C-alpha cells in the first residue's frame, strides 16, 4: 500500500469463517486506514457481507486476528465495535418498523436517555438527515413503517453517522444506495467524501461499479472468500474490475456442446414480463429449453419464478404459461421438504392425484413412484420409507427434483436449487436436467453460480427486478453476465 505508515483503523489478518462446508471467508487480510474510503466489490457469495459482519462484530471468525487502532482484539463483539467507533449499515434494513425515527436513533445510542431524550434523539437524527439529504421531508416523529423504502434507507444511513458518546471512525456501507434514487444517492456519496476528508473512514460495498470507482480511494476485490485484488482506485477501471471479479483463469467449457440454435420452432411454453420491466423485453421459453436466470441475488429472479408459478393457475396480461408447472425451492429446509414425512411421501406429494386409490393414497403406487426415481437419480438410502431427514443435504435436494420430475409438470422452475449441494450431486443433476430437457421438458433455472449457466440454452440477466440482458448460448461468457449485473455509473 502506498500509505504504509499511515494510521491503520482496522486490520484483519488471515480471517476465516466457515458455514458448514462453505468457506465464506478463506484467509482474508484486510486493512482500512484513517481518512480513506475503501470500495469492496465481488460477485454473489464472494464473502463481502460476511467480511462486513466480522468487522461489525456480529459474526465471530473461526480463526484469524482482528486489530482495531493497532490494538489486537480478543472477544470482539458488537458492543466493543461500537465503543471503538465502528458502525455498519446493513444491506437488509435494520430499523424497527414500529418505532419512530427518533426512537430508532435512540436504539443505537445508549447515551440517549433521561428526561428529554426524545427531543435530543430527534434533533440528533434530523441534524444528520439535513446535512446528508437536504430537503429529505422526514420528521422525527414519523413511524418507520409509514416511510417509503428509500426514506427508510436515508434514516438508516443518517443514523450510522450520528455521534453521541462513542467516536465515529469507520462506517461500513453495504449497498447504501440500493433503494435511493440517483439524486439522493449523489447526496450520500458526496457526504461520504466529506466525512472521509474529515479524517473518518468508510467501506463502500456496492454493485454499481461506477459508484465505487468514483468514490473510493482504494478498491478491494473479493472472489470465493478471498481477496483477489487490491489497489488504488486509479489503478482500476470498469473492465479491470469485471475481470478481477470473474474467474482468474477461464473455466473450460464443461459438458457436451448442445445444439446451440434456439428451439424457436418448438411451441412457446412461457412468456413473462417482470413487473418492473420498463421496456418490452420479456422472458420466452420454448419446449425443451433450459433457460437461465442470472444476475446478483435478490434482483427479482425469485419473484418472477413465483409469479410464473402463480400464472400457471391464473393467467395475467404479463405472464402466459401453457403447461403444468412444478417449482423446486431453493431454501430446502424452509420451502422444500416436509421434515416429518418419509422420502416416498415427500416425492409423491406433487402427484397425489395419480397415486390415489379411491379417496386414499395408495401406498404401493407411492412406493413405486419413489423407487423408480431412487433408481433413476440415485437417491442414496436403504429404504424409501425412511424419514427425509435421514438423507444428506444433496440427496434431500434430489428428492425434491424427483418430486418435480416425477409429476405431470412440463415446466420446472428452479429457484437456485443447488445451494450447499456437493459437486458430485450437482453433476448428476445437470445430467438429469439435460436428459429431461431433451425429452421435451422446459426448465427455468435461477442460479447464483455463474458456472451453472453453462448448462443453459439461453440466459436472462436481471438487475433491480428487470431483464437487462438476453444472452444466447453462443454469446454467454462470465464477463458478460457480470458486466450486465453490475450497473455503470448512476
Amino acid at each position: 500500500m502506498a500509505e504504509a505508515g499511515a494510521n491503520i483503523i482496522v486490520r484483519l489478518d488471515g480471517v476465516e469463517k466457515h458455514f458448514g462446508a462453505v468457506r465464506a471467508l478463506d484467509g482474508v487480510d484486510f486493512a482500512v486506514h484513517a481518512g480513506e474510503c475503501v470500495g469492496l466489490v465481488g460477485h454473489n457469495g464472494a464473502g463481502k457481507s460476511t467480511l462486513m459482519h466480522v468487522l461489525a462484530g456480529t459474526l465471530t471468525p473461526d480463526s484469524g486476528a482482528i486489530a482495531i487502532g493497532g490494538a489486537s482484539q480478543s472477544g470482539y463483539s458488537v458492543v466493543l465495535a461500537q465503543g471503538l467507533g465502528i458502525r455498519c449499515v446493513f444491506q437488509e434494513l435494520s430499523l424497527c418498523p414500529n418505532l419512530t425515527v427518533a426512537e430508532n436513533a435512540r436504539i443505537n445510542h445508549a447515551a440517549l436517555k433521561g428526561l428529554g431524550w426524545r427531543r435530543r434523539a430527534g434533533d440528533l437524527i434530523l441534524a444528520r438527515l439535513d446535512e446528508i439529504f437536504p430537503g429529505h421531508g422526514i420528521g422525527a416523529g414519523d413511524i418507520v413503517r409509514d416511510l417509503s423504502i428509500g426514506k427508510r434507507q436515508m434514516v438508516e444511513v443518517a443514523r450510522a453517522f450520528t455521534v453521541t458518546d462513542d467516536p465515529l471512525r469507520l462506517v461500513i456501507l453495504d449497498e447504501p444506495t440500493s433503494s435511493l434514487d440517483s439524486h439522493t444517492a449523489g447526496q450520500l456519496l458526496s457526504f461520504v467524501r466529506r466525512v472521509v476528508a474529515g479524517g473518518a473512514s468508510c467501506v463502500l460495498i456496492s454493485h454499481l461499479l461506477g459508484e465505487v470507482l468514483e468514490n473510493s480511494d482504494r478498491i478491494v476485490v473479493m472472489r470465493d472468500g478471498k481477496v483477489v485484488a487490491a489497489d488504488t482506485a486509479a489503478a482500476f477501471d470498469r473492465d479491470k474490475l469485471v475481470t478481477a471479479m470473474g474467474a482468474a483463469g477461464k473455466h473450460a467449457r464443461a459438458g457436451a456442446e448442445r445444439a446451440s440454435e434456439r428451439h424457436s420452432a418448438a411451441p412457446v411454453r412461457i412468456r413473462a414480463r417482470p413487473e418492473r420491466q420498463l421496456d418490452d423485453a420479456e422472458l420466452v421459453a420454448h419446449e425443451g429449453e433450459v433457460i437461465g436466470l442470472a444476475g446478483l441475488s435478490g434482483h427479482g429472479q425469485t419473484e418472477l419464478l413465483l409469479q410464473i408459478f402463480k400464472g400457471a393457475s391464473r393467467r395475467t396480461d404479463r405472464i402466459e404459461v401453457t403447461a403444468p408447472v412444478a417449482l423446486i425451492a431453493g431454501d430446502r429446509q424452509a420451502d422444500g421438504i416436509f421434515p416429518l414425512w418419509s422420502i416416498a411421501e415427500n416425492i409423491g406429494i406433487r402427484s397425489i392425484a395419480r397415486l390415489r386409490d379411491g379417496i386414499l393414497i395408495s401406498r404401493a403406487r407411492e412406493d413405486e413412484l419413489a423407487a423408480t426415481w431412487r433408481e433413476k437419480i440415485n437417491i442414496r438410502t436403504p429404504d424409501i420409507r425412511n424419514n427425509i431427514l435421514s438423507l444428506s443435504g444433496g440427496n434431500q435436494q434430489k428428492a425434491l427434483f424427483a418430486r418435480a420430475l416425477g409429476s405431470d409438470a412440463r415446466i420446472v422452475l428452479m429457484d437456485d436449487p443447488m445451494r450447499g449441494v456437493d459437486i458430485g450431486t450437482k453433476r448428476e443433476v445437470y445430467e438429469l436436467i439435460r436428459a429431461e430437457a431433451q425429452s421435451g421438458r422446459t426448465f427455468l433455472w435461477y442460479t447464483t453460480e455463474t458456472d451453472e449457466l453453462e448448462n443453459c440454452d439461453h440466459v436472462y440477466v436481471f438487475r433491480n427486478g428487470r431483464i437487462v440482458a438476453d444472452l444466447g448460448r453462443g454469446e454467454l461468457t462470465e464477463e458478460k453476465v457480470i458486466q450486465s449485473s453490475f450497473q455503470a455509473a448512476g
Partner: protein
Amino acid sequence: MASLPLAGSARLPILAGMTPRRLLRALLPALSLSLILIGIAWLNPRAISYFGFTLMLNLAIPIALATIAQMFVITGNDLDLSIGTFVGFVGCVTATWLHDAPLFGALVLLVSIGAYAALGALIHVRKLPSIVVTLGMSFVWQGLAILLLPKPGGKAPDWLLQLMSFKPPWVPFPIIAAVVIAVVAHIGLMRTSYGAILRGSGGNPIAISRAGWSLLKTKVTMFTLAGIFGVLSGMALIGITTSADANIGNGYTLLSIAGVILGGGEFVGGRVSPIGAVIGALTLALAASPLLTFMHIPPDWQVGANGAILIIVLAARALISRREG
C-alpha cells in the same frame, strides 16, 4: 399518503403529524367505546350517571390491569395464556394469606412475579413457544389456586376493600383508576428511553441485538411487568368481590388478549398502545353485561353476543388498516 394539516393536532402531541388514516386507526378504540356508551345511554339514560358508571365499570379495573399485563407480553411477540389463572391464583393468595399473614402473603406474591420473570428467561434462552409454556403454566397456577382455596371463600384485606370502594367526588373511581393505569403504562412503555428498546425488540429483534442490547433482558423485563400487573389485577378483583374462588380469573386470559387487540395492538411486530388497551378493556367490560342486559338479551346469549361485538369491531379495524397499507 400525504399528511394533511390537522386542526388542533399541535395541542395533542400524541396525535401530531398523523395521517388521517393513522388518526382514524388510533381513534378506533375510543370510537367503539363511544358507540357502546351511546347504545347504553339510548337504552337506559339513567345508567349514564356517577352511580351507574361506578356499577357498570366496577370490574373494568381488574380487566384493564390484566390487559396491560397481556400487552407487555404481546409487545415482545409472545402470548400469555396463563394470565387468567394467574389472576385467580393471586386472588386466592390475597383472600387468604395476604389477609391472615400479610408479610407472608406479600412474599408469595413477589415470588410469583419472580416466576413470571423466570418464564421469560426460559422462553428466550430455550427458544420455546410462549403459547405452549404459558398454557402449561396456566394449569400450574390453577392447581395452586385450588390447593389454596378448594371451596370459594376467604376474605379480602380491609385496606384493599376500602381502596376499591373509594368514592371520589364528581368522577367515578373506575374511570380515575383507568386513566391512572393508562397514563402509567403509556409513560413507561411509550415515553421512556428503555420503553423504546422494549417495543423495538418486538419490531425487529435482530436490529436491537445488533445495536448491542440484550434480548434476554428485554424479554425478562416484559414478563416481569406482566407479572406485576397480573398481581395488581388479582388484588383489585378481590377488592371488588371481597372473597375469592379458584376459578375467578379464568375468563381473563381471552378478555385480556381481546382488550389488547381491540385497543389497536397487533400480535406480532411490537405494535401496541397502552391507552388503546385500557379503552379496549373498558369496552369489553361495558359490552359484557350492562349493554346486553339493557338490551334484554337473556344471560344465556350474552357470551355469544359479546363475541359478535368483538368480531364487528375487529373487522372494522382490519378494513381500515388494509386501506392504510
